[in-house]
């Protein structure tokens, strides 16, 4: 019986395993050094916040794996030997495979800051990071202040988490406005205000120079590059993004760049080795997508696809319309299609913001053809299915504005803003036909 080995039990690896099991009777082994059972990485924050227990993070009950003959192996793969179709664990143990799927995920970036390896300095990616955070910041007596470095999604999640334990937070963002490499200015500013409303000390245009240690080798303060200001703190959280976790593949002969290089079939340079999820790097980026997509949804989609290929239905990774979501403290965000911080050539942005300053949308469209290109919505939920259809059918911006009600996904009885949005669009001269 063919033996499929999957390195990594995140959403990419688990989705693959589930789909292979549905399609075949192959022997499947899933390896993880992090946890025995699959959990939802995106929900780590809720354990620290006390919304959920660890068990609530597991999408499948523990009996699921045995029942579906998915073998779980706890161990750290230190080497892959593609010539021999064999893995080696750091314990020295070996395991052979017929097909190998690398779904090893990411590691947190560190940019060589002085003091970045001190005690009391950490990122948030893994279960181990969460345990460490519980040690470093159990309450505001042990952790008098935390400094977060990096203005991305994990940074703002960390800020929210720490605030639930009343720990004062200073949030250093390198950019001039929160996440403005992704969000248009109006949206980014709306989130800036919301962060401050939560009593988070948001510092924009702020770079970390170094982390200072106390006599025990623990972080005691950070120094800002611009002003030289020293901020006393007990915890420094580094969240400047993630990169593929592929160090264990160096020297194996598997082609790597920033991630594991794969073709559109998600195959590496070895026919029986595949890479999916955060650790995979496309030779050429697909459309507007990045060549490395470290997103829950794309990991799952790659898993769905590669399972087909492995079960004799070769399939390209050919994702549909881009979509994503996040939640910034109390404000939900969804996006469908493409909206960049600035409109591209021949494109225009329509921005609407509610007077309470907590809801807004940005619609991106082509000026000449009026083709709808994408939407960002904050504080209003939108239907994925409808926007996916409108994008496929290349509907016009006018169609979207007229039919926005159809796309609303807010709970029943919520206030509706379609008319206000429509009026705002109609009476803004630059959006007129």
């Amino acid at each position, binding site marked *: 019986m063919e033996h499929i080995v999957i390195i990594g039990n995140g*959403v990419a690896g688990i989705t693959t395993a589930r789909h292979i099991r*549905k399609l075949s009777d192959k022997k499947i082994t899933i390896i993880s050094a992090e946890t025995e059972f699959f959990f*939802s990485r*995106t*929900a780590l924050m*809720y*354990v620290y*916040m*006390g*919304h*959920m*227990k*660890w068990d*609530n*993070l*597991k*999408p499948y*009950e523990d009996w699921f794996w045995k029942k579906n003959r998915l073998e779980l192996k706890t161990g750290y793969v230190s080497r892959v030997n593609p010539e021999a179709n064999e893995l080696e664990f750091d314990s020295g143990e070996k395991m052979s495979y017929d097909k190998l799927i690398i779904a090893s995920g990411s590691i947190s970036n560190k940019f060589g800051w002085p003091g970045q390896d001190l005690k009391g300095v950490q990122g948030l990616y893994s279960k181990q990071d969460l345990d460490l955070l*519980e040690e470093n910041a*159990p*309450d*505001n007596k042990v952790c008098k202040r935390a400094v977060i470095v990096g203005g991305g999604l994990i940074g703002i999640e960390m800020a929210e988490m720490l605030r*639930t334990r*009343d720990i004062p937070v200073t949030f250093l963002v390198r950019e001039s406005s929160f996440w403005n490499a992704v969000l248009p200015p109006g949206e980014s500013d709306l989130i800036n205000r919301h962060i401050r*409303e939560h009593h988070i000390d948001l510092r924009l245009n702020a770079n970390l120079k170094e982390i200072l240690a106390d006599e025990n080798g623990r972080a005691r303060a950070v120094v800002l590059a611009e002003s030289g200001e020293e901020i006393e703190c007990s915890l420094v959280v580094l969240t400047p993004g993630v990169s593929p976790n592929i160090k264990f593949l160096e020297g194996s002969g598997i082609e790597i760049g920033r991630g594991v290089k794969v073709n559109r079939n998600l195959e590496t340079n070895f026919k029986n080795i595949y890479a999916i999820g955060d650790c995979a790097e496309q030779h050429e980026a697909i459309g507007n997508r990045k060549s490395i997509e470290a997103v*829950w*949804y794309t990991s*799952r*989609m790659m898993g*769905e*696809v590669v399972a087909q290929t492995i079960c004799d239905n070769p*399939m*390209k*990774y*050919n*994702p*549909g*319309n881009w*979509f994503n*979501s*996040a*939640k910034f*403290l*109390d404000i*939900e965000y*969804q996006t469908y299609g493409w909206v960049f911080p600035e409109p591209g050539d021949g494109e225009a942005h329509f921005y609407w913001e509610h007077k309470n300053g907590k809801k807004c949308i940005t619609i991106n469209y082509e000026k000449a053809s009026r083709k709808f290109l994408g939407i960002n919505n904050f504080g209003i*939920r*939108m*239907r*994925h*299915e409808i926007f*996916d259809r409108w994008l*496929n059918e290349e509907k016009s911006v006018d169609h979207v504005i007229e039919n926005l009600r159809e796309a609303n*996904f*807010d*709970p*029943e*009885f*919520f*206030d509706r803003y379609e008319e206000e949005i429509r009026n705002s669009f109609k009476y803004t001269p630059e959006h007129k036909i």
Partner: protein
Amino acid sequence: MSKLEHNMSLTGDVPKSLGLSQKLAAVLGIAGLFILVLASFNTNFPNKTLWLTISLSAIAIGILWYSYTIYAGKIEGIKNDQVWFRSITNRGVPAWIIGIVLTGFYIVLYFYPKYLGLTSEGDNTGLISFFDPLSKLLSGNPASQWFVYGTLYTVAILAFGVKFLWKYRHNNYEKLRTFSVMFFQLGFAFLIPEFMSRLNSETFSLPYYDLKSIWPLNYYNFEQYRVDQFISAGGIGMAMLIFGVLSIFVITPILTYKYGKRWYCSWVCGCGGLAETAGDSFRHLSDKKQSAWKIERWVVHSVVVFVVLMTTAVIFSYLGDDSKDYWLNRDVFLIGVALLLTTVFALVMIFKRNEFKKDARYGAIGYISIILALIGFYYLSEGSHIFLFEAEKLRVFYGFLIGSIFSGVIGTGFYPIFGNRVWCRFGCPMAAILGFQQRLFSKFRITTNGGQCISCGNCSTYCEMGIDVRAYAQKGENIVRSSCVGCGICSAVCPRGVLKLENDSMDGRINPNEILLGNDVDLMDLLNKK
């Protein structure tokens, strides 16, 4: 994960230690309860009206003030911080103490009301008589133990209802739903029946009737003494009796078809009302395991079979044998019941067998056992005896086991241990009947938003009915489950806008997916063909 906080928070979202105003609010509420305890021990209060007012106001204001200190000044949003760290909301010592005290209260209320001051001859004393002023104000009669219970129940729904409104002030669905349960409890369950009893005289008497309490939840509605009362009360009595029959056979099916069972379970019902308000802090304690679901289905449907048989037996036992006396005699009644059940069973098997699938076997078992029992009634009954025992005994046994122990002692007493919907999920025959319809014949569903689910599990964690919502959402599949009471909290706590309670066409309501929206269109077409 983290150490438990030993404080009194019911909300999970409070400063680490109680502030001064929170302490004062807690002391006020407890003082109000203490007055009731004193009254139970026959303390002689000089002015009962004044002291009862003080006591009930102190309890209510204590709860409101405490809630205010927690939510006022907080930014609108989900308030589940630290829920699993607090001993009271994570089955710690205070949770057990509350569970035991509540359980004890129910045991005394149902089985030893003499300790509340119920006196068989002469006036009541103790706690019951302490409520006389309010009872006399409303109905003109002295209080009973049920009046005491009803009053405290109503105060709890109103005060904790306001707390819930504060907590979810950003969510109109939750607000409207909570106004609704507060209204129905205060009006229909509490005030109207009291006012109705003012109409009673020597010659005219209506039974105590909470109009929103529908058979089989109101399992005693068609007992002989009540039916006699309805009939002897003339037009208005007959209207109420007919309303009682229409409630379950006409009104309920129509509303459940249009809106799902939520119209009742989380908008109208008193049990649901208490669970959603006073019980809200314990919703995450429901068991989500698949094994719990299996137990739930057996237990709750067994209760349905039990209540159908019990009610049939009770009505059968007081009907006449002869069709000359009255058209509704024993034979007509039994045949009617059998016909009704056969019709329902046949319709489901003909039109819904694809959706029913494996569960058909269980449905058939339930159906056949009832029909066999009905045949048994016919051949093995004599006078008021059915088989070898009296129908009334069956009723008393049901009332004891289901009406008292299950719905009261376990259902409410154990909120802080098993969660707030134990009764609704495992025991309520009304919920099971509505759920049966909701699963097979209703426009209601919880829609999943394409591929947006991140499997975080907030929805499953905060589902008070123990539904593993995530299991559906992460497959892009709508949630169509008989137990869902439509509280809307899964949708509220979802961080990515994935869930929406909706009434829509029955076509495509159940939509199992292999591949979620967002992936290769060809792959989706290939695998999701229905």
